[in-house]
């Protein structure tokens, strides 16, 4: 299976060249890839049907603390998803080649859609928790590229970002959930976890894991209130939306929950959270579908409704629910794929998808109509199509709901009424009725664009009429996988007169009635409120959140990153004072065992001289040269202090450096006019407090450290080794050029580079384009800069 996925990725990456090679026929050539994969997966079908599973594993990272395998697990569930992904994928590649024929970006489409397919296949086939996440993220990434395919339109870009962020945050939550699951159970393979459900369910982290996994699944599967990204994603070209939103990406969440059902499911929390969200989503979105006139929007919300249904079924967790889930997923993939593709074909041929601007296309696009009609009938749950079987079982499962079955079935019926109406809208409005002038002159879509929908629609009929084609071979393994135990059932079109059938009739009737009043309903005030509440609400929430975040970001940047260096410095200083001072006082404590007793007179004089000079420096802040003189006195005094403690080299260096420093500062000051200090008293006091604090801290730290017993063993070694081994009598110099010569080398490099730096700073021409008004060196006060240059 790794080979298949890798092959898909590789072919995806080279697809632009394949496209170049085969030109118009490239769609057919590239469709061989998903089709081949489909056949490969299908070849496992007998094996799976026989109740076996397939496991393959290649170690990716294999370390004591870190084990990630590229492990794959093929059972009924993953096989069905794999078949859907590759099967519909085949049609999508073909469809895309027609839809985007002549588009400059067609090769990029191939590349992205195949990458997406590979990722999606990876998600459903992966066994290792981490590799599930890997592929999961890859689907987020590739879908981002696909949704933003028409990137020159603003709304496309926005939709792509929305999808990426929403599914991205879910993905990250999922990662945390998966890792926690791994830690909780000690297993990193789903196949192993399937038998360890109890460990997880009884683990203290169960709730956290559950919520994190659900966050991943719900965002991906567009459960309310995260559903808002999906309709927006319809900005993508139809091949993309058809693929992503009928068969694949949005179903990743469904897949994940189905996969995790044996591990995380069958608890009350699961039932309430998963079932509840599913139910809420299916109810809300079904009716939202009716508030739009864009075929793809209608289909998008009906998709959300279908996803809600699937999630709800997983939440219910009963055998009937599992059976329903299996059938519903398959049937939905077929009819929704077909409908999306037809919607795209209509858009492609007629130039619009707005059902109000369409009508009477049937004679012009007969095949598309046929496909659409069959698919819509399936979606509406009308016999003998497969969708009918699915809906029947869903109703049955709802009736058997472990909690509040009446509520569940009522809501399910109400939602399905809207879906029936929606099915009618997407077929009757564009294809039947009066011919309407469309932006483009409509005619039948090319073969590549109708073959997929038609086959899918026909399969819907086929499976409906002859359900045994898939039930034993696929549906039972699927349901068993999700249920976590072997199941056995038959599917049939006719269930006898029972409550579900009655409810189906009720649904159908209701749906037709709603369809008839749709135009008025759509325009009615409650519907507007409903739409703005449930469709726009989450979007506004998202956008508000984003705006809030950006606002916060802007605010914090303006506040703390305000460009004033003194503010940066004061922040740093206060941080240092607080961090070091607090630690010092609380952890170490002050040390004070010092006296001034044995100080000599000249030492007092030097100290007073230093303090006086500091006073001069502070007092003459508006006379820079006086400050320089003060600093010079400090430097000379320090040299004397060094000297009086046996440091002749140091004193010499200090004297020399101090003198040269004075010269350099003076040379610079010749050119730079002075600046009268203007700061508020408040900030001066603040600065003074910080400065005094820092000074006191430094003093106390030195005193505390000098109270620690000291061992000058290194210097004693130097004293012994200096002459006999290093042939030098000046130990300081021997340290500099021998014992610690590397320091000196670094230091000389600093000096050397400083020389180069000053040279470059002063001598180098300034860069800047002549059209940059700033480059003329215009000074705020004009004169200042002239002064600088004149001297």
């Amino acid at each position, binding site marked *: 299976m790794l080979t298949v996925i890798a092959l898909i990725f590789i072919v995806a990456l080279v697809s632009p060249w394949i496209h170049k090679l085969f030109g118009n026929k490239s769609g057919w050539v590239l469709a061989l890839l998903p089709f081949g994969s489909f056949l490969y997966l299908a070849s496992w079908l007998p094996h799976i049907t026989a109740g076996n599973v397939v496991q393959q594993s290649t170690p990716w990272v294999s370390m004591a603390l870190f084990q990630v395998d590229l492990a794959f697990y093929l059972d009924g569930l993953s096989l069905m998803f794999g078949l859907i992904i590759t099967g519909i994928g085949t049609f999508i590649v073909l469809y895309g080649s027609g839809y985007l024929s002549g588009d400059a970006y067609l090769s990029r489409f191939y590349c992205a859609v195949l990458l997406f397919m590979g990722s999606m296949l990876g998600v459903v086939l992966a066994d290792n928790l981490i590799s599930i996440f890997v592929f999961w993220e890859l689907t987020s990434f590739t879908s981002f590229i696909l949704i933003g395919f028409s990137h020159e339109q603003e709304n496309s870009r926005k939709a792509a970002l929305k999808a990426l962020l929403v599914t991205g945050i879910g993905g990250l939550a999922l990662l945390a959930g998966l890792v926690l699951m791994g830690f909780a159970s000690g297993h990193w393979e789903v196949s192993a976890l399937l038998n360890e459900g109890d460990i997880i369910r009884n683990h203290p982290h169960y709730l956290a894991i559950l919520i994190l996994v659900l966050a991943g699944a719900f965002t991906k599967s567009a459960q309310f209130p995260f559903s808002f990204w999906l309709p927006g994603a319809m900005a993508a070209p139809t091949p993309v939306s058809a693929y992503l939103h009928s068969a694949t990406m949005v179903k990743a969440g469904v897949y994940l929950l189905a996969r995790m059902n044996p591990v995380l499911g069958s608890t009350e929390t699961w039932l309430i959270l998963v079932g509840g969200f599913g139910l809420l989503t299916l109810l809300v979105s079904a009716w939202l579908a009716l508030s739009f006139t864009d075929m793809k929007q209608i289909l998008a919300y009906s998709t959300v409704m279908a996803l809600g249904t699937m999630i709800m079924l997983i939440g219910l967790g009963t055998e009937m629910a599992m059976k329903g889930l299996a059938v519903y997923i398959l049937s939905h993939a077929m009819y929704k794929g077909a409908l999306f593709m037809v919607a795209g074909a209509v858009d492609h041929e007629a130039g619009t998808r707005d059902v109000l601007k369409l009508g009477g296309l049937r004679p012009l696009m007969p095949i598309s109509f046929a496909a659409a009609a069959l698919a819509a009938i399936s979606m509406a749950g009308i016999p003998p199509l497969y969708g009918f079987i699915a809906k029947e079982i869903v109703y049955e499962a709802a009736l058997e709901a472990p909690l509040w079955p009446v509520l569940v079935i009522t809501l399910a019926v109400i939602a399905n009424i809207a879906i029936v109406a929606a099915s009618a809208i997407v077929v009757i409005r564009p294809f039947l009725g009066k011919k309407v002038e469309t932006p483009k002159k409509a005619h039948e879509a090319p073969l590549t664009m109708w073959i997929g929908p038609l086959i899918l629609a026909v399969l819907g009929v086929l499976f409906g009429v002859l359900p045994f084609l898939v039930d034993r071979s696929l549906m039972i393994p699927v349901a068993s996988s999700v249920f976590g135990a072997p199941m056995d059932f038959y599917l049939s079109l006719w269930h006898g007169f029972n409550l579900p059938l009655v409810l189906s009739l009720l649904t159908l009737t209701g749906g037709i009635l709603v369809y008839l009043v749709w135009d008025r309903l759509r325009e009615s005030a409650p519907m507007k409120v409903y739409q703005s509440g449930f469709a726009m609400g989450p979007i506004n929430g998202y956008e508000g959140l984003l705006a809030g975040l950006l606002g916060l970001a802007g605010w914090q940047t303006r506040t703390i990153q305000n460009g004033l260096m003194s503010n940066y410095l004061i922040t740093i200083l206060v941080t240092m004072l607080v961090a070091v001072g607090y630690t010092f006082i609380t952890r170490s404590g002050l040390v004070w065992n010092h006296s*001034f007793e044995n100080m000599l007179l000249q030492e007092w004089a030097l100290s007073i001289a230093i303090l006086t000079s500091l006073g001069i420096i502070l007092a003459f802040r508006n006379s820079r040269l006086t400050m320089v003189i003060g600093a010079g006195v400090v430097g000379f005094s320090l040299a004397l202090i060094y000297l009086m403690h046996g440091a002749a080299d140091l004193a010499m260096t200090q004297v020399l450096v101090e003198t040269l420093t004075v010269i350099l500062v003076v040379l610079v000051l010749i050119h730079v006019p002075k600046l009268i200090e203007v700061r508020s008293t408040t900030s001066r006091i603040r600065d003074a407090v910080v400065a005094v604090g*820092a*000074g006191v801290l430094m003093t106390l730290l*030195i005193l505390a450290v000098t109270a620690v017993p000291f061992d000058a063993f290194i210097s004693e070694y130097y004293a012994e080794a200096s002459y006999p081994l290093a042939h030098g009598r000046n130990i300081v110099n021997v340290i500099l050029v021998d014992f610690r010569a590397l320091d000196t080398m670094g230091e000389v490099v600093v000096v050397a580079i400083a020389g180069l*730096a*000053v040279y470059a700073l002063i001598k180098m021409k300034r860069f800047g384009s002549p059209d940059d008004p700033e480059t003329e060196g215009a000074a705020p006060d004009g004169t200042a800069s002239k002064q600088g240059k004149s001297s």
Partner: protein
Amino acid sequence: MDTILPILAGTIFATGIYLLLRRSLILTIIGIILISNSVNLALFSLGRLSTENPPLIKAGSLEPLAPFANPLPQALILTAIVIGFGLLAFALALAYRSYRELGTVDQDELLKDAEDTSAAIVPKNDFKDGGDV
């Protein structure tokens, strides 16, 4: 002296910090000079003080006269002084050049974060002849 030196170091440090926060870059630089001096002094007193013999070996002997002043901090401070001097020269030149280009040494005026940086950074490269290559 081993009490007054830490106090002096702290005082010089405090003065340096206060100057560091002034608006004029020149004052900032003088602040850096003082801070640098204070840290050197701190290092000096942390190597423990001695009013004894310098760490020099007289001709004819193999070791300095004990007790001798700790030579290691001296060497370290020497290194630090020279490094500090190099950096100071750079800072001065930078302040000077900034003044020439920006017309002021007022931090608050000239240090507002720059916004569009594109034009000034990269010289116009003529691609036709391969530019600067």
